[in-house]
């Protein structure tokens, strides 16, 4: 019964995402950028990788760390604020539908969109790698698979954070602004801040003690470090890869696994404060 209500919500939400062109836009964005990277982005990771697919995967990591959270936030910011504005939130909550069920249904549908976009985008890049490198590219398949499931988990984190923004602002326009702000802070400014701190610290205790934890605590950085460390590639784009090798792989892995649950709980708590 509970499951059927969650699935009903997910089905409706997916239909809305499809009609709103979020599926098309997300898939197109992922495929376009992946394609560009597959053809042009192999240079920074070239030295260490042995097969063309691993090279592509190393480039895709940097792409995913920006694009997946962005797509997830764009899809999710309207979830609660939009319903609140249309007046359907009060109606849904007057039904025998728990807040957790409503939120989970939306999360499942939107995660499906993110998954489709990620799979389509990476598939294009993989096809290019196989076309240019032949069967040798098959050696990169484990790295590609790892990138796929970590990307989906990263998407789940930012979908839930988008839901939390949606609950806190209660207006779609406000939620959109908060979502973009969150993306800037967590994806762009966080790394810049850490870099600046590392430079200022000049090899002191911040660099050795705080910095590795600061990297692991941010889900996007954990995603990047885990994928880079696991694939043994070098990511010249971030400038933070030097640290990646010094952090035990279980730490970013744990962060990747815990964050989706944590973010979903934050979203659920934020939803509790919403009065329809």
């Amino acid at each position, binding site marked *: *019964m509970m499951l*059927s*209500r969650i699935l*009903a*919500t997910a*089905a*409706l939400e997916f*239909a*809305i995402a499809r*009609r*709103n062109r979020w599926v098309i836009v997300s898939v197109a964005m992922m495929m376009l950028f992946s394609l560009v990277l597959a053809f042009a982005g192999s240079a920074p990771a070239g030295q260490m990788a042995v097969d063309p697919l691993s090279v592509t995967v190393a480039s895709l990591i940097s792409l995913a760390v920006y694009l997946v959270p962005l797509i997830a936030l764009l899809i999710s910011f309207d979830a609660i604020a*939009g319903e609140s504005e*249309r*007046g*359907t939130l*009060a*109606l*849904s*909550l*007057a*039904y*025998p*539908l728990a807040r957790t069920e409503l939120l989970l249904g939306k999360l499942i549908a939107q995660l499906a969109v993110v998954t489709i976009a990620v799979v389509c985008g990476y598939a294009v890049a993989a096809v290019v790698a196989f076309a240019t490198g032949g069967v040798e590219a098959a050696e990169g398949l484990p790295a590609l698979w790892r990138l796929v499931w970590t990307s989906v988990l990263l998407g789940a984190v930012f979908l839930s954070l988008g839901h939390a923004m949606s609950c806190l602002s209660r207006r779609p326009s406000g939620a959109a602004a908060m979502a973009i702000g969150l993306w800037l802070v967590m994806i762009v400014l966080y790394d810049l801040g850490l870099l600046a701190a590392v430079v200022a610290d000049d090899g002191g205790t911040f660099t050795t003690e705080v910095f590795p934890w600061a990297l692991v605590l941010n889900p996007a950085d954990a995603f990047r470090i885990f994928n880079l460390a696991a694939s043994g590639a070098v990511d010249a784009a971030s400038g933070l890869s030097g640290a990646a090798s010094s952090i035990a792989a279980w730490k970013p892995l744990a962060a990747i696994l815990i964050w989706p649950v944590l973010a979903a709980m934050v979203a659920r708590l934020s939803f509790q404060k919403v*009065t*329809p």
Partner: protein
Amino acid sequence: MTILTLSKLTKRYGDACVLDEVSLTVSAGERVALLGHNGAGKSTLMKLVLGLIHADGGTIELAGHAPGSAVARALTAYLPENAAFHPAITGREQLRYYLRLRGQPVKQADELLEKVGLADAAGRRIGTYSKGMRQRVGLAQALIGGPRLMVLDEPTSGLDPVSRREFYTLLDELAASGTAILLSSHALSELEARTDRMVILSKGKQVAQGTLADLRADAALPLSVSITPKAGQGERIAEAFSGAIQSEDRVTFTCPPADKLAVLERIAAQRDQIADFDVHAATLDDLYSHISKRAA
């Protein structure tokens, strides 16, 4: 059988008292209208009944259950004010969703849409619907599963007079099958005298309650009488009725409802001087504005 009981219900937002010790009951098959201006506390009362918000004082019982409990939600249907469903989905998809939430077969969607006159638009996106059509989608979802209590927030706003009449016919059927109905409106005339009882709220306080006849008797608003005298008889007629005002071809005056028969007798006595006459009772809007003013 009483379905809904509110006793001394109180809700405050900060210092503002939105509802002040409101008590009312709605029985099975009864249609009760909540009347009040915008901000009188109608929507707040409804949200309390639905368990969407919580009261600061007083109690609500819904067939013996607490508002917002799983049983109460299963028994209650709601039509929010100005519900605008997502424009990207069709009326049929929206109804199917709500049917699934209530554990009802989705094939009822078309049946329900037909009942509210949306059969032809079922496959079209709600974004293409007019306001009245969206209101009908809202009404269709409220009919799902034969609810014991229907809570309808301004259900006829946005409906044209013909649709409004059809809507009340639908309510009559529901009430006849035992559904308790609580609906709100900002005008007495909107109700078209088709509810059993009215509760008038003003600034969170309950200022009147009763049938339309009760309210009329209580207000005792004067009747207005308009007489068209025969040629040259105007002054004689005006003298015959105290307080009468003579205009070009009419003599008008008011009288208390209790004096209605006495006035008619005097009109009959003057029949040789009178060409025609009309007696008007106070309109529903007059009555409502009188009660609201008296409260203030």
